């Protein structure tokens, strides 16, 4: 990671400073890591009430034109033309080996209009990648400059309603353009009901004035964002997903329509078919360490006989479940929930159970 002086700053950095945020570098951005409440309280507040996150480091791309759906079908293992109006889907950019370049959310906003939401760390590469396809299809790829806010938690819908937004037409994994240059979807990265709203900076400041005046709402930093998503069993690209992992090993085949597995012409289709035919050698699983000691990313796993079994890709403490939580990749025969493994933590063998994900149940509003 480059020194702090090279980090990009959020458009609303002044707001976070005023809220007392402690900052740190992530994916090339100076991001609020925690606010004065601290990670434990922030995490629990989001599970109980409403957490507000500035996720403007993430990138929105608008893909439009007669060839927009065809472009997305080539770039991603998805049938963009089959999406209903306002429907969102998790998908990927794969490389030729079916490795995951990035994971994305694609939303259909019109017959020839799609929103693609990409991870911060891959934004520049994703833009070049998408624009590379635009030459072959009758479509335009437009990166958007937006403030991007996530409003997450069981009272998120009430809070946005009180702020004057019409949220009731949206169910989980649907998105709309409620105002000029706005994009609002019912989705998130916490396992809770919630919304993600991309909007121009001035509109964002007006909305925040209402939201931060609501006592149910609290700013949440990146530290709690990470513990929330890990409890919810959601992947972080760069850790749990990478160009070296494919959707089958990552246990994300549910995101790829069955008919596309056989006949799709998306980038990486042939390689993915070959992987599926053989069966993936490793699988992403939940891992529950025994006791209180967290098991971190990069920790090696062994089976009961001491043979290599896999590696942890994300690990920490789950504030709402009250125990350490982790995810990682293990050899496929060991991927069954209940399998006993051991994590090598600084020379100590910590017993770890393969566990079903999520650790904290999803509470999405599916309508």
């Amino acid at each position, binding site marked *: 990671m480059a020194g702090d002086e090279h980090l990009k700053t959020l458009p609303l950095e002044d707001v976070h400073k005023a809220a007392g945020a402690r900052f740190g570098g992530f994916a090339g951005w100076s991001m609020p890591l925690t606010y004065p409440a601290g*990670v434990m309280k922030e995490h629990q507040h989001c599970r109980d009430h409403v957490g507000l996150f500035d996720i403007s480091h993430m990138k929105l791309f608008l893909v439009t034109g007669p060839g927009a759906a065809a472009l997305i079908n080539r770039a991603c293992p998805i049938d963009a033309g089959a999406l209903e109006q306002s429907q969102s889907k998790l998908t990927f950019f794969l490389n030729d080996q079916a490795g995951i370049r990035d994971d994305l959310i694609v939303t259909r906003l019109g017959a020839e209009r799609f929103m693609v939401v990409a991870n911060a760390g891959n934004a520049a590469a994703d833009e070049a990648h998408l624009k590379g396809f635009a030459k072959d299809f009758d479509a335009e790829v437009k990166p958007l400059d937006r403030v991007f806010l996530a409003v997450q938690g069981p009272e998120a819908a009430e809070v946005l309603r009180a702020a004057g937004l019409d949220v009731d037409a949206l169910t989980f994994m649907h998105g709309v353009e409620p105002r000029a240059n706005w994009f609002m979807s019912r989705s998130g990265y916490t396992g809770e009901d919630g919304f993600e709203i991309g909007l121009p900076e001035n509109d964002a400041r007006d909305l925040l004035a209402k939201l931060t005046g609501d006592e149910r709402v609290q700013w949440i930093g990146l530290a709690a964002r990470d513990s929330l998503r890990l409890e919810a069993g959601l992947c972080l690209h760069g850790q749990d997903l990478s160009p070296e992992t494919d959707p089958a090993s990552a246990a994300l085949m549910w995101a790829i329509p069955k008919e596309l597995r056989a006949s799709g012409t998306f980038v990486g289709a042939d390689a993915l078919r070959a992987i599926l035919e053989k069966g993936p050698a490793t699988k992403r699983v939940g891992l529950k360490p025994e006791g209180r*000691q967290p098991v971190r990313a990069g920790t090696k796993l062994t089976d009961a006989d001491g043979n290599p079994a896999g590696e942890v890709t994300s690990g920490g403490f789950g504030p709402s479940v009250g125990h350490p939580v982790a995810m990682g990749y293990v050899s496929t025969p060991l991927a069954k929930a209940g399998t006993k493994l051991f994590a090598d933590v600084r020379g100590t063998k910590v017993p770890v159970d393969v566990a079903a994900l999520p650790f904290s149940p999803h509470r999405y509003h599916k309508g």
Partner: protein
Amino acid sequence: MAKTYFTTDHEWLSVEGGIATVGITDYAQEQLGDLVFVELPEVGKTLSKGDTAVVVESVKAASDVYAPVDGEITAANEALSADPALVNSAPTGDGWLWKMKLADESQLAGLLDEAGYQAHIG
């Protein structure tokens, strides 16, 4: 009467009768955030200055706490096994980490006093 010293690694030592009680400063606990686990040292273990004595784990990361001087561990704060957050709530009191018998009291001369530490963290 105990005398308190500080290190540039944000530890405090309270020394009395050749035994140092060691912990991290309020500044350090604030930087680390909420602690969820403390890996305590074994009593009887001999450490040299700079050796890892304790590992403190926050929700997000693990951080080493180093022995500020040479010596032998005489006690570990077992209360932290059940309640690691004591380090956050009382870093210079009930949240102490370990006690050690000093091998060479002259090493204390190289440490900071409170005014020196306050100047160090600015």
